[in-house]
């Protein structure tokens, strides 16, 4: 099991990010983490990444603590986190120096596939920066990828490139947790869909089961979260 949450609650100052969440994430799945704004998607991904600590419950990642195993997890946050002076070349140097599992050749290929310009991020569009951040994330050979809204605020063509890259780069022993509001566009990727509402688990279902029942991830989204 790559990650296991047992009755995990994360409380902020006055609110709860997630509440009593119990989930298992085995190897080899692409999981859609779905929900409305404030439903706890980002909190859950940050907890697994080790950026937040649970207030209650047990969370194990690779059998240990999430923070202790942060080097084995890839987390792509929703905020635009690159330094404005940074070029793809600088990004490559940073990642190579800090992450032993970063593959510079794969990064170069991804830059081409994702059509990332070789200039400073301050001269890039939001979509180009998003694609660069995705290339940095996918050029690592990890087992667990946590992608928080990688499609948010990005134009249609860039979104397509990002989704294509996810399909292209995914290996069957890797697990991707993808949170997105672009449910319809990403629907084809998902093998499993997790629906969160007000920090609680509303539904955890294999996408294939929904399709066999004549439904879809999008339709269920509307039914469960409406």
């Amino acid at each position, binding site marked *: 099991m790559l990650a296991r949450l047992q009755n995990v609650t994360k409380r902020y100052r006055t609110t709860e990010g997630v509440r009593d969440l119990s989930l298992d994430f085995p190897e080899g799945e692409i999981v859609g983490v779905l929900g409305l704004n404030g439903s706890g998607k980002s909190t859950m991904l*940050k907890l697994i990444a080790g*950026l*937040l600590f649970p207030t209650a419950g047990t969370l194990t990642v690779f059998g240990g603590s999430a923070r202790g195993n942060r080097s084995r*997890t890839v987390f792509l946050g929703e*905020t635009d986190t690159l330094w404005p002076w*940074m070029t793809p070349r600088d990004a490559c140097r940073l990642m190579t*120096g*800090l992450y032993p599992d970063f593959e510079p050749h794969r990064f170069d290929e991804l830059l081409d596939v994702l059509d990332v310009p070789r200039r400073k991020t301050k001269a890039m569009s939001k979509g180009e920066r998003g694609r660069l951040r995705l290339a940095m994330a996918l050029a690592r050979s990890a087992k667990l990828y946590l992608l928080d809204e990688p499609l948010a605020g990005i134009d249609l063509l860039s979104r397509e490139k990002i989704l294509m890259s996810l399909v292209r780069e995914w290996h069957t022993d890797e697990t991707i947790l993808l949170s997105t509001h672009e449910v319809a566009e990403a629907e084809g990727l998902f093998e499993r869909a997790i629906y969160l509402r007000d920090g609680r688990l509303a539904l955890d279902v294999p996408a294939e089961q929904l399709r066999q029942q004549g439904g879809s991830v999008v339709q269920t989204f509307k039914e469960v979260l409406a």
Partner: protein
Amino acid sequence: MKSLRTLLWLEHRRSWVWMASLLGSLAFWAWGIKQVRVMEVGERLGIRAGLLAMAAAVGVFVLCLMIGRIRAETRHGQYQVLLLTPPSGYTHVAARYLYAIGVALVYFITIGFLYWWIMALAGIHLDPTTLIELVLAVPFYAMCITVLPLLAWTLLLMVFISAYRVSGPGWVPGTVMLLGTPFVFRWLGEGIVRVSYSLPGWRLFANAPAALIERFGQPDPEAVLEIDRFLYLGVPLEPLLIMLALAAVMLVIAGRIWQEVEA
């Protein structure tokens, strides 16, 4: 080592504008010093030395601002990126600190040379030993008792505030630490004065009086006594040792907190 090198490189890329501005400001100070045209040599030397002391104080302030930019990084999400990297919090803190110390070292050694320059302008010619003491020993001593603990304190303060950002009111620990700072440093200063000269002092500038007498003539007997007392006692080593130990402790705490920060 590879990750420390990379973090030092990142620190340089993040901070080179600060570094260049700080070091470039010395040209401005040198220009300002040249503009002091008081007729009396001693007074002119005093004003110029005062300006350089001001440059040193401004430098410490700018260095503290440079090393304490964690708040802005937290807002822009870059701190989050750094927290997730494999190097430990200690490595991150060490990289920031080492880079700032490197810049400080260049800055204060240059100020040492500027002191030598204003003395040369006043007609005081220092021998090589005194020159080395002025440009190496004095900056080293001054940095150890002021810059190093202040930078460590700033780093600890910013990491501490960031640690409370997500699940607690960040302004409370920050305000408490800031308000407490003058009291802590006063208490520390009083303690240091009490234990000073328990160890043999570090004797400096043994040859300097000769150069001063050559230029200004024999000083009055009271001044001679003071100078002789300073030459005999040297500068106290206790402040240096206490401040270095304190800086090390603060850095270890900052590194430990970094390991536990949420973002």
